[in-house]
């Protein structure tokens, strides 16, 4: 499978990366080179093989069902959470207007 400029534009839009025409043109052969190369995986007989989901067998743990079980990742951290925000306003993340 290979991609054309319109497809790359669609992917870029899904990935929320603005790309002008020149950037799209540059990306088309690069992506096609990579896609043509990974195509060889189609040669591998994977019948009866389950896709890997965990590389080292491990059980998912549940944390204690209490508020702030881990104080470091619990609540009450508003200022720390907002400290690196490009536009923090009134204790919230500021974004451009989304509702007219």
């Amino acid at each position, binding site marked *: 499978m290979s991609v054309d400029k319109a497809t790359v534009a669609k992917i870029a839009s899904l990935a929320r990366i603005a790309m002008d025409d020149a950037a799209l043109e540059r990306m088309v052969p690069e992506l096609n080179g990579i896609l043509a*190369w990974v195509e060889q995986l189609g040669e*591998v007989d994977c019948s009866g093989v389950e*896709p890997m989901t965990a590389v*080292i067998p491990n059980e998912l743990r549940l944390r204690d069902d209490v508020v702030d079980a881990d104080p470091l990742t619990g609540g009450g951290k508003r200022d720390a959470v907002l400290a690196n925000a*490009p536009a923090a306003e009134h204790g919230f993340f500021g*974004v451009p207007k989304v509702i007219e």
Partner: protein
Amino acid sequence: MTELTSLGVKAIRDGVAGGSFTAREVAEAFNAAVAEAGALNAFIVTTPDHALAAADAVDAKRATGGPLGKMGGVPIGMKDLFATRGVQTTAASHILEGFVPEYESTVSQKLWDAGAGMLGKLNLDQFAMGSSNETSYFGNVSSPWKKAGTNAAMSPGGSSGGSSASIAARIAPAATGTDTGGSIRQPAAFAGISGIKPTYGRCSRWGVVAFASSLDQAGPMARSVEDCAIMLEAMAGFDPKDATSLDMPVPNWEAALNADLRGRKIGIPREYRMDGTDAEILESWEQGKAWLRDAGATIVDISLPHTKYALPAYYIIAPAEASSNLARYDGVRYGLRDLPEKAGLQDMYAATRAAGFGDEVKRRVLIGTYVLSAGFYDAYYTQAQKVRALVARDFEQAWAQCDAILAPTTPTASFPLGSLDKDPLTMYLNDVFAVPASLAGLPAMSVPAMLNADGLPLGLQIVGKPFDEQGVLDTALAIQQRAGFDARPERWW
């Protein structure tokens, strides 16, 4: 005091504990070496005060007779992928430029608790995506090594290239690295140092900027196997904040080191003998076999039939996970925001990410978005995860015949910066020997073997069974003792 910078982790720790010198003297010597080595561009920011404060704390403890810690008095470099409280953490990207974490990564906190101090944040390939340290927003890192008879700037490898360059240049005795598809082992091989990627889950990923979460694993880089063992003990351990952290005790790897390999079987995978592999790399592999035989091991031929497919599977799985992980960079919560005039929220996302990500990062996010998109998911992503299962099964079957595997770390020695950056695929091939162990989550280490005819280091790789870091370290130690690698780059910086 300049001779202090030629010491490794063990020598510094023992020297401070024994009173041969103070931790402050060590920190001052390395701070000075870092300050003089700007030409390497190994550090994005330096933190001499952090190193001094940690050293003073260790010296104060020694004065009162308290325990100094596994890394007591050792100043290290911290790859700029680990969140460090109050110190800029960028993943070598523009999108995180100026990001100052409010918290400390588990691995870095463990190192500080063990008595280490921080010389600075080390440069790397942007978001750890790269094999040459040419994708950093903050400029290339130069290897301290030069190809004989030339003056071209050489690649320190990647993505942990600031780590490998600083250790080889003796401006840091050790550094943290992270390995997603070879990012500890390949730079270690290029720079003539040692580095181990432990079993997936040994080191907490909490506070490490995520690239491909099912593969990312932190590990130590240093100039000897012993130093790696010491530092890995300090970095590893269960962390409830990482859902994939292994809930297992941390062995005393350093104390148990044993280079006597009698009774051990070392597998040589025939599929790693690939067309186009450098003749000197193959020669170093033969030499490695001879060294391990000399240490008492039996060499056995093994087969890892799906080796050829590991790299293409990796270049679906890792970009897929990256495209998901990097969705968090949106210009809202932290990092860069690019808000064109009259732009709406969606335009702000797209403009921010266009301005904040480098070309290689964009390429991988686009590939990942494509292989996960409706209609292509099964053909690409599911197929790659099945191939990954087969690669892991190859290793499981190999363990019936051997205790560890010996292979080259890389298909070539280091190359000049700028010589491979035209074609992404050629660059990806650097990790052809490293990626299979990553896909299988296995512990794997690179240890220096020799210099090639151009005077550049070559590394050998040891891959072990899950949780058998000890077997990997022991095998690497046997090579280290016989290789006697003591070459160091001539200072030009």
